[in-house]
């Protein structure tokens, strides 16, 4: 997929960009934002369920990342470091917003117009998945997305979330079970 680029930025490593920013070239930070915007944005979208909240959390993440950049002890892993900030911001935004109220109408629509068997209808399937993901608890959704969508190891998840590995495994398991139950129910509608 073609991606919008900033001339001279793509070839530069994360560590080099971070060092430039720390040396006073704040414009170099644009390269880091552009590089990680979509990847981090996907997690924020899946976690928060709507573009407005996701973009707000993402902007907050990048601004906080900039402010704390001197504390990024491994500049070559800026992506993983900023992902840790994003996970925490999504927790905060998820708690602040009454997001479940926002999707009630979408829930009803999804249930009435989509089912697991409608494989040809990709939009309906996506709506159904979004609905089901939204029904998970925040902890389950976070664990499921980190494990299965972002492909983090349990050790990495522990660092990002601060939760113990056995607890994380339990959340992932429960999330899988709940998703299957929800989507199977929807199939019967």
């Amino acid at each position, binding site marked *: *997929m073609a991606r*919008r680029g900033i001339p001279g930025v793509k070839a530069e490593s994360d560590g080099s960009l971070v060092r430039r*920013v*720390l040396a*006073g070239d*704040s*414009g170099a*930070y*644009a390269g880091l*934002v*552009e590089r990680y*915007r*979509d990847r981090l*944005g*996907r997690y924020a*979208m*899946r976690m928060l369920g709507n*573009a407005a909240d*996701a*973009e707000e959390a*993402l*902007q907050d993440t*990048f*601004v*906080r*990342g*900039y*402010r*704390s*950049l*001197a*504390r990024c*002890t491994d500049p070559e892993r800026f992506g993983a470091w900023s992902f*840790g*900030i994003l*996970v*925490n911001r999504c*927790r905060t935004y998820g708690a602040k917003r009454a997001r479940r109220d926002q999707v009630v109408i979408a829930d009803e629509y999804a249930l009435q117009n989509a089912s697991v068997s409608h494989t040809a209808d990709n939009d309906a*399937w*996506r709506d159904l*998945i979004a609905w*089901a*993901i939204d029904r998970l608890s925040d902890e389950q959704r976070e664990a499921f*997305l980190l494990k*299965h*969508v972002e492909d983090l190891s349990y050790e990495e998840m*522990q*660092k*990002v979330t*601060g939760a113990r590995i056995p607890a994380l495994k339990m959340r992932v398991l429960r999330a*899988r079970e709940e*998703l*299957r139950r929800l*989507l199977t129910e929807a199939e019967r509608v």
Partner: protein
Amino acid sequence: MSEHDKFLNRVVSTLKEPVQIDAALDRRVMAEIETMPRLELLPAPRSAWQWLTERRTVSISPIGGFALAAALAMIVVFGARTVNQVEPPVTLADVSLPAGTNAVQFVLVAPEAGSVSLVGDFNDWNVAATQLVREEGGGVWAVTVPLTPGRYRYSFLVDGETWLRDPQAARTVEDEFGRPNSVLTIGGA
């Protein structure tokens, strides 16, 4: 592949579809950080820390001794054990102080820990910079650092993976990753 795995794969492949984030977000981020003072970017000054390697003979007045004793309130109970009273030894004669600094002893009760680090604003959040030393015959870990007057955030890192705040600290704030940091304020002379 089991039906369960096929189902999970379908869900995950949908959630992994790329998300397009409005490129205007980059501009908003950059506009916001351009308004921030550059000073916030700079790492904490290392000069006080470098004093550690230089030994100086300093006399400590009785009043200074009391001030030092007042700063020794860093006790964390580790694991399930309860410690009712801990009186870590403080040997003022062993403390070499740079001019204008206060000797502050950080103490952690962690009988089952294999290693303990002190990480904070004063050592650039370098997890390898300041190791606490286990007192002989017990679970008390301690380190003394010289600090100039100011406000410092810090945390303990046990066995390289568990972050602990100091419950005795007057203030606790969350960092960008949602981890609780303790806050220590050293007043001027």
